[in-house]
């Protein structure tokens, strides 16, 4: 009973936070709502006894990714009003399509043929034998799932290559130091002796 109450409270907060991410006017508020959404979903995972995933979500996303994200959002001067042009214009149509889709999905999932309770039962059986979340993950990650795991590594490599390719560029006109040229420089390169006529010579 208490689990259900906790679930519904966190689920409600999660939905609220997710809505705020896309509706908040200030991008910083959006990013902070996203942090809240991550946090509540990690709590939901803890509730489902997936402790490792819950903690990893907080450590990786809230701890590292979102902090970077917040920095980027704060650095950029985003003009939100331009981004929101047309939002109100397309809202009625978008809302209509959304409502129809949700209704259709509810009709399918709510029908008697779909027995959602049986699905949760099978999922619970799978995890019953071994309760230690980290041990289960460790057993399968590099063995059963080694192929997708290696593919994920290549996806990350691809992300690095693509990001560097798209952002790194040689800019002309930037001034940068060439230390070795500075060290190797000689007196003749920098110093020019100029013989100036003096007043005394002019007089005589």
């Amino acid at each position, binding site marked *: 009973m208490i689990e259900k109450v906790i679930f519904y409270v966190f689920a409600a907060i999660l939905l609220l936070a997710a809505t705020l991410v896309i509706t908040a006017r200030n991008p910083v508020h959006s990013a902070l709502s996203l942090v809240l959404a991550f946090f509540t979903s990690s709590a939901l995972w803890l509730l489902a006894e997936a402790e490792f995933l819950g903690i990893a979500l907080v450590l990786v996303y809230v701890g590292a990714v979102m902090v970077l994200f917040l920095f980027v959002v704060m650095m950029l001067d985003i003009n939100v009003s331009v981004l929101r042009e047309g939002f109100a214009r397309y809202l009625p149509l978008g809302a209509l399509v959304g409502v129809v889709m949700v209704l259709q999905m509810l009709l399918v999932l709510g029908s008697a043929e*779909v027995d959602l309770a049986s699905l949760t039962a099978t999922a619970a059986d799978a995890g019953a034998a071994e309760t230690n979340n980290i041990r289960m993950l460790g057993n*399968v990650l590099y063995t059963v799932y*080694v*192929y997708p795991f290696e593919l*994920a590594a*290549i996806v990350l490599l*691809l992300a690095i290559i693509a990001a560097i*390719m*798209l952002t790194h560029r040689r800019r002309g006109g930037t001034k940068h130091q060439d230390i070795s040229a500075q060290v190797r420089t000689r007196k003749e390169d920098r110093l020019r002796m100029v013989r100036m006529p003096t007043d005394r010579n002019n007089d005589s």
Partner: protein
Amino acid sequence: MTFEMPQFALAAPEIWLGIMVCVVLIADLFDRGGEGRIAFLLTQLTLLVTVWLAFSTHWGGAAQITFNGMYVSDNLAAVLKAASAGLAAITIGYSRDYLRQRELLRGEFYLLVLIATLGMSVMASASSLLVLYMGLELLSLSLYALVAFNRESRVGSEAAMKYFVLGALSSGMLLYGMSMIYGSAGSLLLGDIMAAAAAGENRLLMAFGMTFALVGVAFKFGAAPFHMWIPDVYQGAPTAVTAFLGSAPKVAALALFLRLLAEGLGDLHDQWQIMAIILAVGSLAIGNLFALVQTNIKRMLGYSTVSHIGFLFLGLIAGSNEGYAAALFYAISYGIMAAGAFGMIILLSRRGFEAEMIDDMRGLNDRHSGFALVMLLLMFSMTGIPGTVGFYAKWMVLQSLVEAGLVWLAVLAVIFAVIGAFYYLRVLKAVYFDRDEAPAPLEAPLGPRVVIAANGGLVLLLGLFPDALIELCRAAFGL
């Protein structure tokens, strides 16, 4: 879950591609002055070896499944991998001079093509929803980066942004569908899903997931009404990228359909058939009618892609192995035609000039009759005129439709093919009958000229002697 040592030798094409990605990445670092020459040559070598490896590892014998059920090695995988690697090799054969003239020539271009090919290979022998998705992401992410390759171009960036947002949306749809399928079957492995579908467990929930998965697949194909990104992306991307984007990934999208919907959810065929019919008819109508009014040839070819995808879906509708073989043949032959058509645009462009309007094709016959002949072959093939490979592709699809008793669809397809003939022949009118007042000399260097001649020759050769390729496609489905 018990663990068996995987048979690594069965994954030789992927392992080879993965190693060569790293080799090209390092080799390109030591080739600063060479304008990516080493990367280019290594990539071509890698792709050709992949074609050979695909056949030597997968071809012949019964299907073998390894990596704990996630990797399948069968004839279909061999054909799909060889086709995607071969098409990639043809399309990047055109790219070097185009990229050099626009100061885009960097080793990363070839690296991204290589990673995209790896993604296509992964999809071709995926036997698990997770692996299928990983392969798709490898392909899509490299394509997004390739479309944005020219950072200075505003249309290029806009196209990349559109492609990225719609691609992410479609991936989301696909993932949502996959999660529902996983929920109803209780397994990510396509074999288990097939068994669950046959047993009729949670059939409604599985059909619910299948609907979303089909939408995701249709997005990746560019079938109407999910075709919105195609014209803009084709037009905005650098033509060398469009050539790649328009050919090999269509084979990969077919791989996604065949593995996920034909194999895994084959038992739900009666459920997805009607949706596939809507997609096919919509694509034929929208593709052909919108292509009629285009003046930009890249856009026109974009809409023509949509119509060809419609034809390809007609082959899938029947749900029989004959139909799938016809669709496979169609995808491969369309890939060859599209590679040639975009290759032609690349060759006619020169420094500071993009030959992307149909008017730019004016008087091509006077400038170079060989190029005009290749263009004639390509356009005839896209129309489906006998003597070219496009005829047999359409013929096989129509045959499978008639066998499945869907004569009305076959009639509709032929009507739209006739409408489509108009805009292909309009290009040929410009090539042969219009005059260019100030014809510019053709600057294309020898290498791409050889490739385009081979490409045009392939269209003609496969049109005259299609038996070998047809047999290959039929053998892929055990016919």
